């Protein structure tokens, strides 16, 4: 049974917290602090155990230094960070520029995909006829690995840089398109009835009603697309070469420099995490009317 009289705003939780006795508040705070200590402790324990296992697993191996030990990786990390901004000929490029090249390709391919997939998704989501006509294409092309497009890209575009962006585009297109179509389908149909009954023109009902209501779905699609793009870029760059994290990893493997690869993996993971978090912030873009 709701206790909210029609006159009161739904601010019950905060007022209850204010009214709670000091002791209860203190206890809740202490509990939160204890939990935080436990989480941090657990993390550190796992981390140390991981390093220990890693060390024991690699230190004893007599394989000519092919297995990266934690110590060697640490040294390599410092070295790479020290030379991060190095730009000394085509074969001596700092890790920063490799990272920058990868991020640029991903953002470009991803951005173009978003510019095409979002409007197309809004159209397909609202029009059953358009959707039924295009759905077979989407269903067949969606499961194709983006890397399968790579040779075709090379053949048609005759440019490795463009090809990498094209592969990213193909990787990002489907998640955004499908999430947008799905997002439109999930919009409360009464919102659209409301727009109709207000005699809103197409622009108003698209930008003030449909798009904001679909935004959560679109952001989900963008996140999936960006993660996929970030996964794919490393593989694509191993093939197309030039600058980039994938190319760097492959180069270091050819030089049998495995500690570099471990460092690169950590960097790739960290940047992927940051990219995902940034795109999730788009959720706040909903217009306030």
């Amino acid at each position, binding site marked *: 049974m709701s206790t909210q009289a029609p006159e009161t*705003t739904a601010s019950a939780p905060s007022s209850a917290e204010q009214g709670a006795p000091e002791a209860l508040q203190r206890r809740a705070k202490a509990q939160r602090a204890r939990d935080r200590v436990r989480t941090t402790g657990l993390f550190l324990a796992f981390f140390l155990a991981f390093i220990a296992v890693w060390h024991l697993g690699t230190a004893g191996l007599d394989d000519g230094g092919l297995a990266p030990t934690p110590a060697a990786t640490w040294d390599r990390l410092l070295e790479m960070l020290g030379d991060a901004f190095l730009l000394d000929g085509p074969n001596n490029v700092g890790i920063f520029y490799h990272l920058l090249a990868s991020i640029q390709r991903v953002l470009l391919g991803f951005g173009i995909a978003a510019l095409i997939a979002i409007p197309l998704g809004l159209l397909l989501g609202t029009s059953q006829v358009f959707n039924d006509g295009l759905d077979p294409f989407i269903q067949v092309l969606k499961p194709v690995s983006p890397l399968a497009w790579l040779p075709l890209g090379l053949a048609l575009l005759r440019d490795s840089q463009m090809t990498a962006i094209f592969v990213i585009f193909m990787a990002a297109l489907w998640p955004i398109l499908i999430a947008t179509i799905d997002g439109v389908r999930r919009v409360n149909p009464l919102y659209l009835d409301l727009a109709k009954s207000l005699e809103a023109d197409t622009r108003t009902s698209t930008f003030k009603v449909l798009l904001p209501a679909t935004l959560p779905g679109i952001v989900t699609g963008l996140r999936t697309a960006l993660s996929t793009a970030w996964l794919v870029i490393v593989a694509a760059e191993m093939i197309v070469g030039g600058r980039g994290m994938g190319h760097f990893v492959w180069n270091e493997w050819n030089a049998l420099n495995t500690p570099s690869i471990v460092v690169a993996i950590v960097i790739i993971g960290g940047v992927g995490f940051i990219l995902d978090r940034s795109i999730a912030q788009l959720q706040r873009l909903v*217009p306030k009317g």
Partner: protein
Amino acid sequence: MTAQTMPQETTAAPPVVKIDGITKGFPNRKKGFQRIVAETNVDIQEGEFITIIGPSGCGKSTILKMLAGLESVDEGAILLEGEPITAPSRQLGIVFQQHVLLPWMSARQNVVFALETEPGSTSTKEELRERADKYLDLVNLSHAADQRPSQLSGGMQQRVGIARAFALEPKVMLLDEPLGALDALTRHELQLQLLRLCEQQKRTFIMVTHDVDEALLLSDRILVMGSGPNAEIIHDITVPFGRPRDAETVEQDAKYHELRSFLLGSLTSH
């Protein structure tokens, strides 16, 4: 109390809404096509408060949607001041059963949004804001104008929806179980508020409800539908209470109980 306040008995003015021989059905998997609403004819005079009541699934919402222009009629026509309703229009204000407030806008922004979408509107943002505030005040929500729908209780959200529909100043207000989703206490409170609002804002109202007491309190005429499919209006009852009304006088009227049991009987005997 006299029954002589009914507009259609005292005037011969043309009806503001004329439901002229409409029927409606939907494609049906088993039968191919299922008629939901049987041929229906109703004349509604300006200023009348009409309630449609009937068993669940008989087609009340479907009729209201056709009145709103959100659903087409199969046969016949619905005329608003002589012109057939073929598309939604700002002349027809709608209050939906669930509140339909855009969750990313505050209460006031929701009302202003409805006002500013008017094609060819020349009002300034400031004027629209004032008009929105006036109608939020009518439903006693001035203090909550800046809150988002998620911060409002169900009753408050429904009142914003009512304020929005009134703010459009439509010829006809269409209400589909406007208070149906609320708890009994809030519902009763809003019934009284709605009664006051309707008597202040002279307009034509067409409301769907399940609540016999609500129908008797608010309406001038009650249309009782039989059970579906192919449902028709089986009673057209004139409510004999004068206006302005208040709940106590209405409930103490001997005819109230008579009508109440008649309505309950006709709703359950199917």
